[in-house]
């Protein structure tokens, strides 16, 4: 079942585009890790999906509906934790829970109680008096306790200590297990991305750069290290099909290929006639840095 569909979506603020012609669709039960550098447009994309922004061009459909024209119907089925605090600061935790209970017919009291206990949230304290981590936990507890069909987390790990981050992760997995919820989350913690995501979408230079199953990325890409002395310039590496990027790091060129290491070594050796190269798999963090890192 299709949950989310973006077709040729562009959006900018004032001048140029933040996002340019982004297309992808998400099926039920997928867990999408949204990657990109700060300012790449991850939050803009999430806000477009939430109907908080309108696309300049293209269409967004959530559950087959246009999210701005059907704001209430769509938002009732989405759980959303924003990067910045958006809960009413002067309400107490139990009052926020009461508000959500009213707004969402599917509110699961047992789940909410269970999470309040697990996160050790002080029910009688006002949101503004909570730590940043606690406030995010309240936001998460509220976002999941009506068992949404789509859970959207914008930088869920931001400002959380490792233990609280782990609780975020476990809560999301619980929802995945019990409700079959589809999840879209942005994160800079590659370990969390690797644990959670079934598929990655990477945004770079305003465009969708990578959109692939996580395991295909993990097994289908390699890093080739080629001595700079053996090359005229990086263009030679880039000219091979399946090369994603090539950059010089001192005396060595780093190039990422959409090939397994052995095939990669063979391809580069054959094309360039250079024997002295090394190819290996690369971890997600390393890949992110190679692709989006140094310009």
């Amino acid at each position, binding site marked *: 079942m299709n949950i989310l569909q973006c077709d040729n979506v562009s959006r900018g603020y004032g001048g140029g585009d933040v996002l340019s012609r982004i297309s992808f669709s998400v099926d039920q039960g997928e867990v999408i890790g949204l990657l990109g550098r700060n300012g790449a447009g991850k939050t803009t994309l999430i806000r477009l999906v939430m109907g908080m922004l309108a696309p300049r061009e293209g269409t967004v459909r959530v559950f087959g509906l246009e999210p701005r024209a059907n704001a209430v119907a769509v938002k009732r089925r989405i759980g959303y934790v924003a990067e910045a605090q958006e809960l009413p600061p002067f309400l107490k935790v139990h009052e926020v829970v009461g508000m959500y209970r009213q707004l969402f017919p599917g509110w699961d009291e047992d789940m909410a109680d269970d999470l309040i206990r697990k996160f050790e949230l002080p029910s009688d304290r006002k949101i503004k008096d909570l730590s940043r981590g606690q406030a995010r936990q309240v936001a998460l507890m509220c976002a999941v306790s009506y068992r949404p069909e789509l859970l959207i987390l914008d930088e869920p790990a931001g400002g959380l200590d490792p233990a609280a981050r782990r609780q975020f992760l476990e809560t999301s997995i619980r929802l995945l297990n019990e409700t079959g919820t589809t999840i879209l989350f942005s994160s800079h913690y*590659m370990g969390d991305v690797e644990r959670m995501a079934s598929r990655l979408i990477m945004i770079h230079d305003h465009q969708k750069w990578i959109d692939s199953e996580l395991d295909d990325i993990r097994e289908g890409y390699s890093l080739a290290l080629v001595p700079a002395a053996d090359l005229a310039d990086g263009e030679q590496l880039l000219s091979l099909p399946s090369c994603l990027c090539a950059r010089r790091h001192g005396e060595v060129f780093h190039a990422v290929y959409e090939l397994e290491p052995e095939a990669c070594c063979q391809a580069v050796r054959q094309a360039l006639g250079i024997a002295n190269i090394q190819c290996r798999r690369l971890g997600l963090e390393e890949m992110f840095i190679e692709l989006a890192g140094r310009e």
Partner: protein
Amino acid sequence: MIFYVDPGSGVPIFRQLVDQVKLSIASGVLQPGDELPSIRSLSVPLGVNPMTISKAYNLLVHDEILERRPGKSLVVAELGQGEIEDRRLEQLRETLRPALAQVRQLEIDPDEALALFGELLAENDTDQGKD
């Protein structure tokens, strides 16, 4: 058996799980007929997407290392003694494969590499003799 995952290791998580089950069977920690934990019960404490665990289990079923019993969760498949022996060797084969790639990359003479392996075995025997 106790599963663990290391997201930064360079090996995809589903493969880490497959390898751990194989290793546990080869070393006798898991015996034929032993039941594997359910996907749900494993995914939360491991902090891993349940689909990843499902993928690992499906691969093991496909390779006839695990089997589905009606009404029960997954169990370790029955094996002949010969197969257990094969599996131990297969496990070692997988461990040695990356070393082989390095032998090629560093252009080390195969005889030298074999001699080194023999040396390491002998060293290890001596170490264990001391205990």
